[in-house]
C-alpha cells in the first residue's frame, strides 16, 4: 500500500461504494440527512458550482456593460448591484469555502486514514448553514440588493437605502458555517489520524487544510461581530462606526480586513496543498522540501494575520502603521516563495506527465506568480498610492483569487474526479478547455493591469474613450474564458455519464485515498491502515504493490 502496510480486505471486488450503500433514508433524503463526509463534500460541490455559474453570469454582464463607454446595457445602480453580488457570491460562497468544503470534506479524512470527520453531524450542520446563508444572499438580490461592493465599507453601507442588512446577515451566517468546518477539521486532524501517521507523514494537502482550519476558527468570528455591528449601526445607530455619532469608520476597515485578508489564505492554502500532491504524483518523485512546504503553510497562516492594513494605505491610517503593515506584507512573500521554489525543484529531473490536473497546476504557478508579484507592487506604499482603487487592484486579486484558487479548484476537480465519481473524463478535451481558459483569463485580466496603471478607476460603469481598446480586449477575452469553463464542465458531466470506469489508482499516486476503491466504500476503509512510509514515498508504493 502507498502509505504503509494495509491488510487487503477480503472480497474487495464486492465492496459497495458509498453511492450504493443502503442507509435508513432513501432517495433525496439519503443525501439531505447524510452524515457521510463524502456525500456532504459532493453536496457542497453541486451547490457551489451553481453559485459559481451565477456569479460568473453576473460578471459576464458586467463585462458586457464595459464594452463601450457610457451606458451600454444597464444603469449605474444596476452595475453597482451587479459587482456587489458578483463579489459577495464569488468570495463568500465559492472562493473561501471552495477547496476546504468540497475536497477537504471528501478527501482529507481518507488521506489521514479515517472513516469520517470527527463530528459528522456538525459537518452536516455546516452545510445547512452554508445553504441558509446562500439563500439569504440570493433573497437579498430581489429585495433591494446591496450596492456597497463586497467590502460593505462604512459610512456608505450605513447610509445606503439598499438592503445591506440582509446581505451582511447572509455573510454572517456563512461565517458560522466556516467556523464549524474549521473546528471539525482541526479536531479531525489531531484525533483521527491512522496509526503511524505522524504530522510529518501527512500529505501536504492535509497540512494546507489544517493551517486553513485554524484561520477559519480564529479570524472568522472577527468579521461576524463586525457585520453584526453594521446591522446594529443601521437599525439602532449605536455609534461604533458612524462618524456622525462619534464612531470610527477606519475601525470598521481594520475589523473587516482582520478577517478578510486571512480569508485570502483560507482560499489559497488548501489549494496550495493540492499543488504539492499533484506535482508529486505527476513528476513521479517525492516532493522536494516536504518540511519547509508544510511549515510555510503555518507561516503564511500566521503572518497572513498581520498584514491586513495594506488594504488601508489610503484610508487615513497613521503613517507609522502604514510602514509596519507594508513591511509585514513583504514578509508573506517569503513562505510563499518557499513553496513556489520547492514546487519547481520538485519538477526538476522528474518524470513529468502532463495530464489535465498537472496542466492546470502548471498554469496556476505561472498565473499565481504574476498575481503574487503584483501584490508586492500594491504592498509598496508609494506605488500603492497611485494604484489604489484602480483596475490594477482588480487585476491583481483576480490573478490571485481566480488564477489561484479557481485554477486549483479545477485542478482538484480533475485530479480527484476518478476517485469521487469512479469515472474518467476525456483527457484531451480537459486539456483543451484548460488552454482556452488560461488564454481567456490572461486576455481578460492582463489589460486591467495596464488600465489601472493608466488610471482607470474600479467600480465605475463608465470610462474615458482612451480605455476602450483595453475594455474590448477584456470583454472579448471574457467570452473565451467562459467558453473554456463551459467546455470543462461539459466534459466532466459527459465523463460522469459516459466515461470509462476509473481504477483504484489511475494516476499512480502515493497518498492513502488512492488505496481505496473508486468511488470509496462507506466509511472508506475496512481496516484502518497502519502508516509506515511518507506520503510521497514511491518505494513504499512499489513494496506494497509487490505484496499485493
Amino acid at each position, binding site marked *: 500500500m502507498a502509505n504503509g502496510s494495509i491488510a487487503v480486505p477480503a472480497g474487495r471486488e464486492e465492496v459497495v461504494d458509498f453511492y450504493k450503500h443502503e442507509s435508513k433514508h432513501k432517495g433525496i433524503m439519503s443525501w439531505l440527512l447524510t452524515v457521510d463526509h463524502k456525500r456532504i463534500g459532493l453536496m457542497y460541490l453541486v451547490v457551489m458550482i451553481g453559485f459559481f455559474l451565477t456569479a460568473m453570469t453576473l460578471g459576464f454582464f458586467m463585462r458586457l456593460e464595459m464594452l463601450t463607454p457610457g451606458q451600454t446595457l444597464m444603469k449605474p445602480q444596476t452595475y453597482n448591484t451587479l459587482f456587489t453580488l458578483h463579489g459577495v457570491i464569488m468570495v463568500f460562497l465559492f472562493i473561501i469555502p471552495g477547496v476546504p468544503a468540497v475536497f477537504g470534506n471528501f478527501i482529507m479524512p481518507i488521506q489521514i486514514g479515517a472513516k469520517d470527520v470527527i463530528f459528522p453531524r456538525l459537518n452536516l450542520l455546516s452545510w445547512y448553514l452554508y445553504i441558509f446563508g446562500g439563500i439569504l444572499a440570493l433573497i437579498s438580490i430581489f429585495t433591494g440588493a446591496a450596492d456597497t461592493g463586497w467590502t460593505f465599507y462604512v459610512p456608505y453601507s450605513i447610509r445606503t437605502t439598499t438592503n445591506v442588512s440582509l446581505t451582511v446577515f447572509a455573510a454572517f451566517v456563512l461565517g458560522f458555517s466556516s467556523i464549524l468546518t474549521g473546528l471539525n477539521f482541526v479536531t479531525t486532524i*489531531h484525533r483521527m489520524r491512522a496509526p503511524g501517521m505522524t504530522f510529518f507523514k501527512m500529505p501536504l494537502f492535509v497540512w494546507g487544510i489544517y493551517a486553513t482550519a485554524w484561520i477559519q476558527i*480564529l479570524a472568522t468570528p*472577527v468579521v461576524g461581530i463586525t457585520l453584526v455591528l453594521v446591522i446594529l449601526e443601521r437599525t439602532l445607530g449605536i455609534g461604533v462606526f458612524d462618524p456622525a455619532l462619534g464612531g470610527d469608520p*477606519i*475601525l470598521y476597515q*481594520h475589523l473587516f480586513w*482582520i478577517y478578510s485578508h486571512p480569508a485570502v489564505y483560507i482560499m489559497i492554502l488548501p489549494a496550495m496543498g493540492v499543488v504539492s500532491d499533484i506535482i508529486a504524483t505527476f513528476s513521479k518523485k517525492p516532493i522536494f522540501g516536504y518540511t519547509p512546504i508544510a511549515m510555510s503553510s503555518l507561516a503564511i497562516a*500566521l503572518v497572513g*494575520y*498581520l498584514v491586513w*492594513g495594506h488594504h488601508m494605505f489610503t484610508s*487615513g*491610517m*497613521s*503613517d*507609522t*502603521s502604514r510602514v*509596519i*503593515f507594508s513591511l509585514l506584507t513583504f514578509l508573506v512573500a517569503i513562505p510563499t516563495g518557499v513553496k513556489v521554489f520547492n514546487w519547481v525543484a520538485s519538477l526538476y529531473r522528474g518524470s513529468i506527465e502532463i495530464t489535465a490536473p498537472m496542466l492546470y497546476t502548471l498554469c496556476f504557478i505561472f498565473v499565481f506568480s504574476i498575481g503574487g508579484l503584483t501584490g508586492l507592487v500594491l504592498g509598496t506604499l508609494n506605488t500603492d498610492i497611485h494604484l489604489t482603487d484602480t483596475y490594477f487592484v482588480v487585476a491583481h486579486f483576480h490573478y490571485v483569487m481566480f488564477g489561484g484558487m479557481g485554477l486549483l479548484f479545477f485542478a482538484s476537480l480533475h485530479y480527484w474526479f476518478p476517485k469521487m465519481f469512479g469515472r474518467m473524463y476525456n483527457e484531451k478535451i480537459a486539456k483543451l478547455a484548460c488552454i482556452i481558459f488560461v488564454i481567456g483569463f490572461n486576455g481578460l485580466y492582463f489589460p486591467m493591469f495596464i488600465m489601472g496603471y493608466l488610471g482607470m478607476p474600479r467600480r465605475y460603469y463608465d470610462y474615458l474613450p482612451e480605455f476602450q481598446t483595453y475594455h474590448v480586449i477584456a470583454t472579448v477575452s471574457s467570452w473565451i474564458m467562459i467558453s473554456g469553463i463551459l467546455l470543462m464542465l461539459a466534459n466532466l458531466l459527459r465523463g460522469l455519464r459516459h466515461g470509462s470506469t476509473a481504477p483504484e489508482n489511475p494516476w499512480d499516486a502515493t497518498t492513502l485515498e488512492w488505496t481505496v476503491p473508486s468511488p470509496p466504500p462507506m466509511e472508506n476503509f475496512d481496516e484502518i491502515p497502519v502508516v509506515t512510509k511518507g506520503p510521497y514515498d514511491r518505494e513504499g508504493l512499489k513494496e506494497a504493490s509487490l505484496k499485493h
Partner: protein
Amino acid sequence: MDSEKEKAIHEHESHSHEYGVYILVFFGLLALTAITVSIAGLNLGSLTLTVALVIATIKTCLVANYFMHVKFDSPIFKVFIAVCIVIFATMIGLTFFDLIFR
C-alpha cells in the same frame, strides 16, 4: 498506552467530582464581580480601565482553568489557547498602533 489512558480517565473522574473546588471558584467569581462593581464607583483616574481588565482577566483564567477544565487537560490545549491569546493581542495591538499614531 493503556495505563496512560486509565490514568487520564482516573484524573478526569477525580477532577469531575471535586465539587468543593467548583463552589469555591464560583464564590471567588462572585467576590471579583462585587469588587468590579465597587471599584466602578471609585475615581481611580487612568487606572480605572486597567483595574477592571485585570479583574476580568483573573475571572477568565478561573473559568477557563476550572469550569472549562483547561487545568486538567493535556498541554496541547494550553498551546492552542496561548496561540489564540497571542494572535488576539497582536490584532488589538496593531489596531491600537494606528489609533495612537494617527
